[in-house]
C-alpha cells in the first residue's frame, strides 16, 4: 500500500513539475503589478529641459531667475556631478588636462552669456542665463539657455537643446535628440536632425518662403468626379486606384486614393489628402488640410500646407514651401525627412531615422 501511495505521489509530482513555475508565481506574486502607464506623460518636447531646470533649482535656488551670480568661476556638486558656475566673462575655466583631452565632464552653468570654445566635448549639461555661443566642432550632451543658442559648424547635440528664444546652427550639425525654441530655429545646409519644435523653423541662409502667391479658387478649374470613385459620403472622395489631378485644379473636400496620388502645379485642395502609395504635389500647390501617405511624400516648390504632413516612409519638401502658419502650427513626421534650404515650417518636425537639410536642387 505504501509503495502504491509513493507511486501515485510520484506520478502526481511528475504531472505537477511542469506547472511548478506557474504555481510558484501564482503563490509568491513576483510580478503582479499593473503595467506602467505614465498618466502625467504628455509627450512635451521640452520635458527634459524642464526637468533639468527643476533639478538645478533644487540644488541652486534662484538660478533660473538669474539671481545666482559669480564674480569668479566657482565649483560645486550638482547631484553626482561637478558643476562650474561661470562668471560674467562667459568663458568657462578649463584645466590643462581638460584642454589636452579636449573634453570636460563639468556641468557648465553660466550666470550670464556663455562663450564656448570649439573642438571640445562637453560631456554634461550646459546652461546659460543669457545666450550660448559655441565654436565649431563641439559635441554637447544637452544645452539649455534663457536666451539664444548659436552653434558653429559641425557641432553635435546628443540628447536635447532648448532655448527660451532662438536656436541657430551652422552647417553640418548633427542634432540627434530633441531641439526646441520658443521663437525660432534656423538650420543650415547639411545639418541632420531628429525631433524639433519652434513657432518657426527656417532652413538655409535666406528663406524664400512666403514669396510665392497662394493659388486662389477663382482662377482654378474644379476637378471632375473620377471614374473609380467608390464612395463620396461625408465630404470625402474615395478613389479606387491612382489619381492624377491636373494643374490649376480646385477640389473642396477630402481626397483618398487607394494607390498613388499626384496634384498638378498651382492647384488648390480645400481639405486633406491621403494616398495609400506615393503622394506628389507639384509646385505652388495649396492644401488647407493634412497630407498623409503610406509611401513617400514629395512637396514641390513654393507649396502651402496647413495641416500635418505624415508619411510612413520619406518626405521631401522643396525650397520655398511653407508648412503650417504662425497661428496654426502643425507637425511633419516620417521615417526620413529631407527639407531644402528656403523652406519654412511652423511647429514640430519628427524624423524617426533621419532629418536632413538639403541644398536647393537646380
Amino acid at each position, binding site marked *: 500500500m505504501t509503495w502504491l501511495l509513493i507511486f501515485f505521489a510520484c506520478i502526481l509530482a511528475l504531472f505537477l513539475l511542469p*506547472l511548478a513555475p506557474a504555481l510558484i508565481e*501564482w503563490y509568491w506574486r513576483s510580478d503582479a*503589478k499593473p503595467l506602467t502607464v505614465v498618466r502625467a506623460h*504628455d509627450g512635451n518636447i521640452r520635458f527634459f529641459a524642464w526637468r533639468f531646470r527643476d533639478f538645478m533649482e533644487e540644488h541652486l535656488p534662484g538660478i533660473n531667475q538669474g539671481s545666482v551670480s559669480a564674480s569668479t568661476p566657482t565649483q560645486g556638486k550638482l547631484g553626482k556631478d561637478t558643476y562650474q558656475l561661470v562668471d560674467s566673462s562667459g568663458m568657462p575655466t578649463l584645466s590643462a588636462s581638460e584642454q589636452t583631452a579636449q573634453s570636460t565632464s563639468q556641468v557648465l552653468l553660466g550666470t550670464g552669456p556663455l562663450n564656448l570654445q570649439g573642438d571640445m566635448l562637453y560631456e554634461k549639461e550646459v546652461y546659460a542665463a543669457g545666450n550660448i555661443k559655441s565654436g565649431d566642432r563641439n559635441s554637447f550632451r544637452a544645452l539649455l539657455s534663457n536666451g539664444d543658442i548659436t552653434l558653429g559648424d559641425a557641432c553635435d547635440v546628443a540628447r536635447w537643446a532648448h532655448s527660451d528664444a532662438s536656436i541657430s546652427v551652422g552647417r553640418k550639425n548633427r542634432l540627434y535628440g530633441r531641439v526646441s525654441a520658443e521663437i525660432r530655429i534656423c538650420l543650415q545646409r547639411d545639418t541632420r536632425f531628429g525631433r524639433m519644435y519652434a513657432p518657426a523653423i527656417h532652413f538655409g541662409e535666406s528663406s524664400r518662403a512666403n514669396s510665392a502667391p497662394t493659388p486662389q479658387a477663382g482662377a482654378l478649374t474644379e476637378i471632375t468626379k473620377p471614374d473609380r470613385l467608390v464612395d463620396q459620403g461625408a465630404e470625402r472622395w474615395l478613389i479606387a486606384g491612382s489619381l492624377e489631378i491636373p494643374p490649376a485644379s480646385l477640389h473642396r473636400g477630402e481626397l483618398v486614393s487607394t494607390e498613388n496620388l499626384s496634384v498638378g502645379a498651382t492647384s488648390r485642395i480645400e481639405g486633406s489628402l491621403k494616398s495609400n502609395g506615393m503622394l506628389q504635389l507639384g509646385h505652388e500647390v495649396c492644401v488647407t488640410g493634412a497630407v498623409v501617405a503610406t509611401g513617400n511624400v514629395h512637396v514641390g516648390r513654393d507649396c502651402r500646407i496647413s495641416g500635418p504632413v505624415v508619411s510612413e516612409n520619406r518626405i521631401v519638401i522643396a525650397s520655398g514651401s511653407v508648412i503650417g502658419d504662425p497661428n496654426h502650427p502643425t507637425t511633419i513626421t516620417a521615417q526620413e525627412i529631407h527639407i531644402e534650404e528656403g523652406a519654412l515650417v511652423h511647429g514640430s518636425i519628427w524624423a524617426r531615422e533621419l532629418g536632413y537639410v538639403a541644398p536647393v536642387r537646380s
Partner: protein
Amino acid sequence: MVTTAESSTALIASSHTPDPLEFRPFSALIKKPQSSELLGLRYTAESRYSSISDHALTIMLYLLWGVIVLVLVYTARHYFFTLNRLFGKQRHPYLDIDTATWPSVTVLVAAHNEEAVIAEALQALLDVDYPADRLQIMPINDRSTDRTREIIDAIAALHPGRLIPLHRSAGKPGKPAALKDASELATGEILIVFDADYVPGRGLIKQLVAPFFDPEIGAVMGRVVPLNTGSNLLTRLLDMERSGGYQVDQQARMNMHLVPQYGGTVGGVRRIALDAIGGWRDDALAEDTDLTYRLLLSGWKTAYQNRSECYEEVPETWPARIRQIMRWSKGHNQAAFRYAGPLLRSDKVSLREKFDGMLLLGVFAMSPILLFGWVLAVILFYFNATNWLTGIFALFALISYSALGNFAAFFEIATAVYLDGSKGRIRLIPLNYFGFLVSLLSIARASFNQLLLDYILRRKLVWDKTPRYRQATKSTRAE
C-alpha cells in the same frame, strides 16, 4: 491487391453478428489496414456498426476535416500576427503628431451605477492636455440608482461650461442607446468614448485624436491596460490575455493594413463618418464591432494606437467574467450574421481586409466549432472510422498540432508579455489554459443560446454591465 490485414478487417466488418454481448475491441485496438491512399489518408469512413452508416460517418469525417482546416487557419493567423510583432515593420504613423490645430472633441463617458469610479475618471479628463475650448466632456448617467448623478452634477458645478452631463431616465437601456442619445447633443467633430472606470493620462486625448487628421480614418482604438491585475488569479490571467489581444493582435493588424477593431472604449469615431453610416445602432449588443464593420464597409479605416494606453478594471470573479464573455460572444456573432455577406461583396474593402475581417467575425464562432470537432472526433473514434488517418501522416499531424497549433494562442500571449517587458508573469502561461477552457465553454453556451433558445423563445439580447471593484480593491492594492 488486398493485404492480409485488410482481409481480416473486412472479415470483422462483414461477419458482424447482432449479438450484443460479443466483445468488440475499440478501433484503436484493431490493427489498421495498410492504406494505398496518399500519405495513408482515406477519403471515406467505414462503419463497424449497422447503427450508423458509412455515408453518415463519411459526412462526419468531412465535417471534422472542415473543423481541422478552420483551426489550422486560426493557428496560422496567431503565428502570423505574433511573428509580425516580433520581426515585422511596426506602424505608428500618427504617434508623432503633437502639434496641430486640434479639432473639437466630445468625450462621452457612459455611466450606470458608477459612484465608485466616475469622479476619478472625470477629474482625469478635466486634467488632460487638450485645448479646453475644443473639449466637451459629456458624462452619460444612464438611469443610475446610486450616487452617480449627484457626483457628476457636483463636478459639473465646480467646472462650469466644461462638463455637459446627460441624465437618462427613459428610453432604451444599454450603452449603444446611451451613446446614440448623447451623440445627438455632442458638438465635437470627433467623439471619444470612455467607460466610467477608465482613467486617461494627460496626453491621451491628443493621441487618440491625431489619427483623424488622416481623412481615411473613421475610428481609433487605444490600448486598454488592466488596473486590478494583482487582485487574484483571474485578473492576472485576464491581464495577460488583454496583452495578447492588444500588444500583438491589434498592433499586428495595424502593421499589416488589416482590420484593427474599434473596442468601444479608449477609442473614438469621426462624427461625420458616424452620421454617414447611420449613427450608433442601439440594437447592437457589441456596438464596437458593429461600428468597426459598418465603417469598413463604407471605406473608412480603424487605426490602432498601441501607445495610447489607459487603465481599466477587469472582472475579479468567474461569474462576472463568464457573463462578460458571453455578452461579447453574442454581440460579435450578431455582427458576424449582419456583416459577413456585405463584407464579401464590398467593393470598398481590399482582399486582405476581407480575409482578416471574416476571420475576425468568426473568432467567437470558433469555440462551438471546436467543441463540435471534438464531438465528431469521439464519434468517429468509437465507430471505427479512425482509419481515415493512419501511419506516419497521423504521427506528424499529431506532433505538429501539439507543438504548434495547440499553443499558438499561448505563444501569442507570451510574446505580448515579453514585449511589455514583464518578467515573472510569463510563468503563469500554463494556467491560462483554464481560462481558455472557461471561455470556450461560455462562448459555446452563449452561441447555443443565441442560435436556438433566443430565437425560439424570442428572447431579446440584453446588455449586461460588468461590476466595478475599485472601492473593494483599494486596500488590496495599497498593500
